[in-house]
């Protein structure tokens, strides 16, 4: 019973991390129709930059902000000068961004080496919390859940309750029409793209403090984020939330109950979904 509860918390904290990554992916697809396979590499490089910042300044908050900002800046240039040139050809986008991810991964390998590195979490976030029933659990993971929920609420409010959000939602539905009403859709794209990159970099720092950073981590985390997006439906914020929870919990229980086949457990929801709802829980025609 205790293990079952622990696994549930593990699952939810992984879900929080996946949501940070998947929400950016799904929003940039929803608005710009861009499939950015470099998102995992953004996560990794953001984590590495955060690691270096944390080691030099000793501040975890600065690391989070710096990792996010560095990726937002780099993502802006990649978007402007490379991805934009593919138009709406998804095949070209996938190949191009996979190439970008290879380059980023190799550069990171040269700078930070091939060992597993961990972003140092501050002292006050270390240690364990005692839950009712005498269960000990790492404090950091709870903080991560709070971060995920906080970002989730902030994004949701931004998306549903502000004028910027309304314009973005309109842009998702009909870009040409929004452009025709005199709104600068291009500037909107830059903002959403920067936000998506920022969240990926932030996730890298947050995730690097408990999952560690290593060459290849970018693809592992990307696949989880992709499953989240597939399950939730491309372009849907609610879908990313629900999808992250489903994938996080399945992964935690899968690792616990069927350690050798934990990846296989991910196949279940995808297969079922393809049979009943090929566009995901909240997806629609694109």
């Amino acid at each position, binding site marked *: 019973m205790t293990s079952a509860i622990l696994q549930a918390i593990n699952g939810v904290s992984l879900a929080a991390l996946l949501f940070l990554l998947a929400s950016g992916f799904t929003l940039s*697809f929803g608005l710009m129709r861009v*499939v950015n396979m470099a998102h995992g590499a953004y996560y990794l490089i953001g984590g590495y930059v955060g690691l270096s910042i944390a080691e030099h300044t000793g501040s975890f908050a600065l690391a989070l902000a710096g990792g996010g900002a560095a990726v937002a800046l780099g993502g802006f240039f990649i978007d402007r000068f*490379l991805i934009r*040139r*593919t138009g709406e050809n*998804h*095949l*070209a986008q*996938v*190949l*191009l961004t*996979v*190439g*970008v*991810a*290879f*380059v980023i*991964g*190799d*550069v990171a*390998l*040269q700078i930070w080496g091939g060992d597993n590195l961990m972003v140092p979490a501050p002292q006050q976030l270390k240690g364990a919390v005692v839950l009712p029933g005498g269960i000990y659990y790492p404090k950091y993971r709870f903080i991560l859940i709070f971060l995920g929920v906080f970002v989730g609420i902030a994004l949701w409010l931004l998306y549903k309750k502000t004028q910027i959000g309304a314009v973005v939602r309109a842009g998702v539905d009909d870009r040409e029409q929004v452009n025709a009403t005199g709104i600068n859709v291009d500037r909107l794209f830059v903002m959403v793209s920067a936000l998506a990159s920022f969240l990926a970099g932030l996730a890298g720092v947050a995730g690097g403090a408990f999952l560690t950073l290593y060459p290849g981590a970018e*693809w*592992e985390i990307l*696949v989880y984020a*992709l*499953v989240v*997006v*597939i399950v939730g439906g*491309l372009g849907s914020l609610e879908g990313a939330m629900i999808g992250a929870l489903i994938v996080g919990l399945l992964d935690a229980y899968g690792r616990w109950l069927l*350690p*050798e*086949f*934990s*990846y*296989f457990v*991910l*196949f279940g929801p*995808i*297969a079922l979904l*393809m*049979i009943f709802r*090929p*566009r*995901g829980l909240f*997806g629609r025609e*694109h």
Partner: protein
Amino acid sequence: MDRARLMLLVVALAGAAALPWIGGPFWTGLATQMMIFGLLALSVDLLLGHAGLFSLTHASFFAVSAYTVAILQVRYGWPTLAAAPAGILLGTALAALFGISVRTRGVYFILITIALGYVVWGIAHRWSSFTGGDNGVTNVPFPAVGPLAVTSHTQYYYVVLAAVILCGLGYRVLIRSPFGLGLRGVKASETRMQSLGYRTGLHIYVAFVLSGALASFAGVLYVYYNKFVNPVAASFPVSVEAALMAIVGGTGTIVGPFLGAGVVLGLRNWVSSFVEMHHAIMGAVFIATVLWAPQGLVGIAARVRARLKGRDG
């Protein structure tokens, strides 16, 4: 087929037959790899170039068949004649299962095939009691059929050459058949094909399974060449590089994927002899291909030829 093309084909075949004498072991090895990965790229291209579907899970079929052959031969002492068909069968069976992904199109298809590919990689990587984990399965022998046994890499080169020629001919028949034309029809306009009465979903599913079978065959050729198989064979970079090879060479053609495999493998071999960062170089090739040569080498050749003809006329 016009005379120039026939000449080119004869020269290419003669060159291929003479390669072990001219090039020595290094070039023979590279050419064997080029044919094996060219075959994998060709299988990806059956979907990509003819049906317009971009699959990123073909390393799965390739690896499952390679693992099957390796495990049956090394651990259970099966002969080639039983192990190789078993490998193709299992790889194709997996393709029949993963074929449900053809219920989706476009981006969803791409993303789902990536996720499926990772499932197979994850099993190869984690189920170490059966797959050997990261070390994989080693000491795979050369193939042997009764008294006929391959004993050297040069001999094996000819086996692969013969296999690739047969596959190329079979592929040519397939894509020119009504089935192949139907696939092209789906690529051009699926709704129109449906209104003409074609069951397009089934059509694409069959293409997916056939393409998985071809990838499985490439996996068999690979494991006998490589002598071992580990989770790298099932990994995402193999799938995406196979697609890159098809695109670099030129999609929708038969020679294209093999040319692309030659370019990609040759470049990697050459580059890794003086820089460590060969992943970054591969990445740069991806980017350059998308931006400047989306039609591949065959496309460039066709453009040059068209321009030359234009000048003549």
